């Protein structure tokens, strides 16, 4: 695929950071990135991989991305959410490649002088990411069914990996 393993991608500007990585995500380090004496609140969202989709067991989960496009989208989301909710800092990171069940696939940390802005900013950043960032999730159910590319916008349906015949 286009993203070679173990190569990290990151874009930063003042109090704003977005990244893609193949490494395990570290909640403490993303909290440290947004911590500030100006901020009385930090909100951390950690999205973890589920072991089922609508009750069907998921054996294996993998994320792929178009890194330069995804980073551009993440940065524009981070900028606009930071501005809109008067955040002190915002940091978002998405994991790529195989993510074992129960591990974090996305972390979003925001800090703000007061908790209301931090809660709202954190929620909006996540919802925007799920709607727009150019990252794709492949769910493997095991057995003969093969994998399914999930689509956030409709949730219920996905495109089977082996849907077509040669």
């Amino acid at each position, binding site marked *: *695929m*286009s993203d070679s393993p173990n190569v990290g991608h990151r874009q930063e500007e003042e109090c704003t950071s977005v990244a893609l990585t193949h490494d395990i995500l570290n909640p403490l380090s993303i909290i440290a990135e947004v911590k500030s004496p100006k901020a009385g609140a930090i909100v951390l969202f950690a*999205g973890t991989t589920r072991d089922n989709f609508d009750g069907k067991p998921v054996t294996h989960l993998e*994320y*792929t*991305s*178009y890194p*330069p*496009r*995804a980073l*551009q989208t993440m940065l524009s989301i981070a900028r606009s959410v930071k501005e809109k909710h008067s955040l002190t800092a915002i940091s978002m990171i*998405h994991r790529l490649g195989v993510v074992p069940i129960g591990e974090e*696939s*996305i972390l979003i940390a925001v800090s703000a002088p007061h908790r209301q802005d931090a809660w709202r900013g954190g929620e909006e950043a*996540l919802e925007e*990411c*799920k*709607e*727009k*960032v*150019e*990252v*794709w*999730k*492949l769910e493997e159910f095991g057995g003969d069914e093969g994998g399914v*590319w*999930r*689509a*956030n*916008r*409709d949730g219920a349906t*996905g*495109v089977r*990996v*082996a*849907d*077509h015949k040669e």
Partner: protein
Amino acid sequence: MSGKPPSEHFRLLYFASAASFTRKSSDTFPAPLPISDLFSVLEKKYSGITKAVLDSCAVTVNLEYVDVEEESGKEKAGVVIKEGDEVAIIPPVSSG
């Protein structure tokens, strides 16, 4: 990403369902090509891809989104893919 395309060609990147359907991460095609012709060129090479994949996809040219439907409705030539461009098929996303 996948190196420079040969001269007078552009590179087309496939992700997720598009990569599964074509069983590749990219192709090169001759340039210039009006963006409105892109899906029919792909359908010729990968029969069935329009209905199975492309109908729900967006397209970027050099990282910027281009509205293929709108371009196809134009009488006069709209956006044209040029030599060396990086074009990508963007299926519905599923981050998080």
